[in-house]
């Protein structure tokens, strides 16, 4: 059992948990993830590590309440426990001095990206950071990112704050030379950024989030096509070269269980959802 030490709401439906897991905290590195299973009947759900404190023996996760499991998770409180927490999983992010790095975060994934960005800055890179969300209320980690950035932008899909959409990146890229781009966010956003950086030949690293079951290389549910080859997201990734990923296939594969997910969510709400009445 893994105890929740801190719970915070960062934006509507986006929550941060700090969880006591000393062994994982000892080994975790930026870019890795954990698999969470809430209870005996629960699903195994992957979430990226958004922070760790080796002294306190805790790790941080930030998640979006999108379906049954994440809604149920969001209803837990300080002092509650999670049944299973496996990790750290996946390869750590590649951290070294590249030069000038374009860091683009979208939605909930901005949180784990902050951990990667911090490590990149500590390795001596100059950072241009872009933080994005659908609408202004969903922006997270703005202040934190701004503090470590040499140059900082905000973008929203609807233009309610900062830049509207991602087109401004083209201008940015044509004005300045970048040695690398690191992107974490919804698949569609990672696809768009990869398409924008490609003509500028800026190596672009994306963190893929295919559907996973074990997260340890046993099932192949997480398979993605990269450079025409099948790779396992959990053991070969989660980071891949954005210019080589078949994003359209990934988008289709992520939607495979949509009808069932709706059933689970409706079923969950029918049986009362959670006690906090938010579900």
């Amino acid at each position, binding site marked *: 059992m893994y105890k929740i030490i801190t719970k915070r709401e960062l934006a509507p439906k986006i929550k941060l948990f700090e969880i006591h897991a000393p062994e994982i905290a000892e080994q975790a590195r930026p870019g890795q993830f954990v698999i969470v299973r809430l209870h005996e009947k629960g699903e195994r759900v992957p979430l990226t590590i958004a922070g760790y404190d080796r002294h306190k023996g805790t790790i941080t996760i930030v998640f979006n309440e999108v379906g049954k499991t994440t809604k149920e998770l969001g209803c837990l409180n300080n002092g509650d426990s999670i049944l299973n927490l496996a990790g750290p999983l996946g390869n750590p992010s590649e951290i070294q001095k590249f030069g000038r790095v374009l860091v683009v975060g979208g939605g909930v994934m901005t949180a784990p990206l902050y951990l990667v960005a911090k490590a990149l800055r500590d390795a001596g890179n100059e950072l241009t950071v872009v933080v994005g969300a659908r609408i202004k209320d969903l922006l997270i980690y703005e202040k934190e990112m701004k503090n470590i950035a040499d140059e900082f932008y905000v973008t929203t899909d609807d233009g309610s704050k900062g830049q509207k959409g991602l087109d401004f990146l083209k201008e940015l890229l044509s004005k300045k030379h970048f040695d690398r781009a690191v992107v974490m966010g919804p698949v569609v956003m990672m696809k768009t950024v990869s398409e924008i950086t490609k003509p500028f030949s800026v190596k672009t690293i994306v963190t893929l989030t295919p559907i996973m079951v074990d997260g340890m290389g046993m099932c192949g*549910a997480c398979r993605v096509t990269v450079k025409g080859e099948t790779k396992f997201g959990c*053991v070969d990734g989660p980071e891949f070269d954005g210019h080589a990923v078949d994003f359209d*296939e990934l988008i289709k594969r992520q939607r495979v269980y949509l009808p069932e997910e709706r059933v689970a969510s409706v079923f969950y709400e029918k049986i009362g959802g959670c006690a906090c009445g938010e579900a």
Partner: protein
Amino acid sequence: MAKPNQPTQPPAKKSKKAVPMPKQEPKVRARNFNEVALGYSEEQALEEAARCLNCPKPQCVVGCPVELDIPAFIKLIKERKYDEAIKKIKEKNSLPAICGRVCPQEEQCQKLCVLGKIGEPTAIGRLERFAADYELKKGVDTPTLPTSTGKKVAIIGAGPAGLTAAADLAKFGHEVVIFEALHVPGGVLVYGIPEFRLPKKIVEAEVEYIKKLGVKIQTDALIGRLHTIEDLFKKGFDAVFIGTGAGLPQFMRIPGENLGGIYSANEFLIRVNLMKSYRFPEYDTPIRIGKKVAVIGGGNVAMDSARSALRLGAEEVCIVYRRSREELPAREEEIENAEEEGIVCKFLAAPIRFIGDEKGWVKGMECILMQLGEPDESGRRRPVPIKGSEFIMDVDTVIVAIGRTPNPIIQTTTKGLQTTKWGTIIVDEKTGQTSIPGVFAGGDIVTGEATVISAMGAGKRAARAINEYLMQKKS
């Protein structure tokens, strides 16, 4: 040929046939996940035990990878001394309720039984299961524990190899901790072999017994990521056993393989068995099974996948195998069970391409017919495609069961660990010792996909060698 419904033979004369295993009716069982084979009653066990000749030089024992004293335990059953029978079995086999159910007996102990020369061999596996179930029903005695040696052993992986090694090492008096990556121990026994062939409560009971021996099991612990083998030595372990199995699914590398509705057998079985998605939405993990299911492959894994698909409500389940029925590698008993349940087989055919609908879901599978040519390295005749014989099968779910390779995480994170080009770990056959002193390995991670009992045999041999290693090492 015997006529059906013949009156049973007088008990004085021994039958040439084994007492049949009582089973759930095919029509009924094809729609539930309860165990198919129901197990012998006491009368049936006694009748079957009476057939055994208690050979002075028993060949059956030679066929058993752990050299179970078969005539001795069967004799004890004849004498109705069931407690002693199970004790006799457990001298050699710490998981009898499992082996009695899933051992390929017809290839091992029963293959060499003398009765097999004139009729059917003694049903050794069924009798073993009878004795083990008798004990489970009665409640397993807690074994007396030896005095502690003060040595610590880490076991990686809680499959049959790791569990057996752990049990034996605990009996030697060592402190044993098993690190298991998944959230439950059991390996393939819990995530692969379905409930209807091996009820999970049987595995749980066997694991409980191993815990009673003092073995600690830490789940959620993927070694290589959480700790490396080097870390384990730093944490005070004196020896390590690797039993991580062959868990990486293979695919065919043909077009369309990543369409929705195409599962590896491992994903399909993990969802169904480990995550219990056959009870979705009570359990949270979904599975989508269509009406027309094709299973690619011909081993036990293919049979288990096909029979599970049927139980999840598929209307048609077809096994597509590139050789003919004679070459099917699955156990005969399971092939018969599958056929009785209504699973059809398409032999001498192999897929070459998958066709998807506009949503990216599979709707068809193009196959090509095969003929058998010269034997290949495995001694089986090699299938050769027949030009121009392509045809399309309508399918909406495909399960790929063409084999699994070793999980690479340990190999890639352990410096100095020697492996073969297939990724299996190289060991000294007798001891299981790897290229690193104090690190041993056994089971599917060494042999590639094999059997439960051979993995257990490897665990046993390694436990003995680890014990010797620890007792020699002065510290």
